[in-house]
């Protein structure tokens, strides 16, 4: 019997083929199989006959919305930088999207990076994606050669071993605490909708750190980011990071030094996270792609918590209202102002 994800894959291939063959879209952004166990390759399909390569599984950790602005541009008729936009509608692009990815597309629309009418969202309810690092940590010292996915379990094989592990136990932290797994925007529904999850405290990890002293938190921060090699995979995997020139590349003034220095690395991560304030959907791509396994997601999670508590906004959930940092309320909390009566930490 085919698994849930095999059925979804089948549906994706059929729908993508239909959209491309009908000429509704010029490209479909999806996933193809990877060369190693637990990996997948992002794939842009431009011809109906290539749709057979598309698939869906539990290892689709990279956020496909990251590719959307560039692919949209690539299907436009070529024109010079000063040429006017051609008349009439531009070609559309279809994209697979789970809850968080669809919210990122909403943010991209709010920030005018993407036009809603040019996107066909193939919505897939997410059952949580598996963290390759978590699985590898379970098999430390043994190389994993193949992983087979069942609906609720994974069968992990290597030379001389075969073990069954529970799938949910190795699902990424951000998926485990996710409350909106079903896509917000759906043009073409793939598979069954997934209902919202109840989570008494999605910010548990943040709360635990907040309960510690400033010195302990500083200790956590410095050791967590000590291994950073400044490859910027976290930045480049993020659908929110589309600036043509990143602040790290500014030379005058040089906000952040570019070599391996604890201060520069720390500053880079603080600034990167802060630039995602009010926009991050906790898709976990940054953490999943880090070659050093750094949990930088906690920084954006902290910001998400504050944005929700102080301004009552979750990024990408309200397509019609402005982003939290592009608006304000006259009576926004301001306990952090030193001249306020009872001044202190904001939000406490």
């Amino acid at each position, binding site marked *: 019997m085919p698994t849930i994800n095999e059925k979804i894959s089948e549906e994706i291939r059929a729908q993508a083929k239909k959209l491309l063959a009908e000429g509704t879209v010029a490209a479909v952004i999806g996933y193809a199989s990877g060369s190693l166990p637990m990996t997948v390759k992002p794939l842009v399909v431009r011809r109906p006959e290539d749709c057979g390569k598309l698939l869906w599984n539990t290892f689709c950790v990279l956020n496909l919305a990251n590719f959307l602005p560039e692919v949209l541009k690539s299907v436009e008729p070529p024109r010079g930088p000063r040429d006017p936009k051609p008349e009439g509608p531009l070609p559309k692009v279809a994209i697979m999207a789970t809850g968080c990815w669809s919210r990122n597309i909403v943010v991209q629309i709010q920030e005018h990076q993407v036009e809603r009418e040019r996107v066909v969202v193939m919505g897939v309810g997410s059952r949580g994606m598996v963290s390759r690092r978590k699985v590898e940590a379970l098999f430390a010292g043994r190389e994993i050669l193949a992983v087979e996915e069942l609906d609720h379990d994974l069968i992990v094989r290597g030379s001389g071993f075969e073990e069954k592990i529970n799938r949910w136990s190795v699902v990424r932290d951000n998926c485990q605490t996710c409350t909106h797994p079903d896509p917000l925007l759906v043009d073409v529904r793939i598979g069954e909708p997934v209902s919202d999850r109840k989570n008494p405290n999605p910010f548990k990890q943040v709360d635990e750190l907040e309960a510690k002293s*400033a*010195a302990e938190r500083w200790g956590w921060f410095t050791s967590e980011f000590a291994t950073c090699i400044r490859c910027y995979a976290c930045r480049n995997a993020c659908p929110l990071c589309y600036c043509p020139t990143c602040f790290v590349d500014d030379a005058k003034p040089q906000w952040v030094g570019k070599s391996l220095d604890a201060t520069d690395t720390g500053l880079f991560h603080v600034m990167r996270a802060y630039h995602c304030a009010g926009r991050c959907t906790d898709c976990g791509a940054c953490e999943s792609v880090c070659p050093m396994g750094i949990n930088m997601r906690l920084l954006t999670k902290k910001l998400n918590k504050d944005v929700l508590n102080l301004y009552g906004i979750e990024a990408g959930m309200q397509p019609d209202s402005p982003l939290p940092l592009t608006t*304000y309320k006259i009576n*926004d909390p*301001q306990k952090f102002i030193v001249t306020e009566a009872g001044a202190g930490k904001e939000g406490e």
Partner: protein
Amino acid sequence: MTSKTNETSQTNWEPKIIAFLCNWCSYAGADLAGVSRFQYPPNIRIVRVPCSGRVSENMILSALKSGADGILVSGCHPGDCHYISGNYFARRRFALLGNLLDFIGIEPGRVNFSWVSAAEGEQFAEVVRTVTEKVKELGPATRLVKKIEAMQAA
């Protein structure tokens, strides 16, 4: 006294505090404090900015990186912004930045935010006194401060 002993000896140490003051209110407030001869500690170095909304996190973090012991960002009171709403936007950004810096373990009191109007000379002096006292208690900044000498040996 050389600057070296100034930095190293705890008893004589005086903090350097970078103050980003908006042109229309807080900078004028500092001016008023001056002409009215209100006393406040000489530890602040003022950077005049058009609006508190102009102050980006890059500026604040850059000051910390360069060795500022404390930061003060001050703008017009909410509702009084010369550009109507600049400080309202700034308020949201500063609230989040302050909390994020606190989260990574920057000592509370290192980075401070206030509202001071052009008529509040005495209040400006009071804010500077409060902030300087707080920073003095914390001692010289070490977190997120870049040190070049130490790097060369690596």
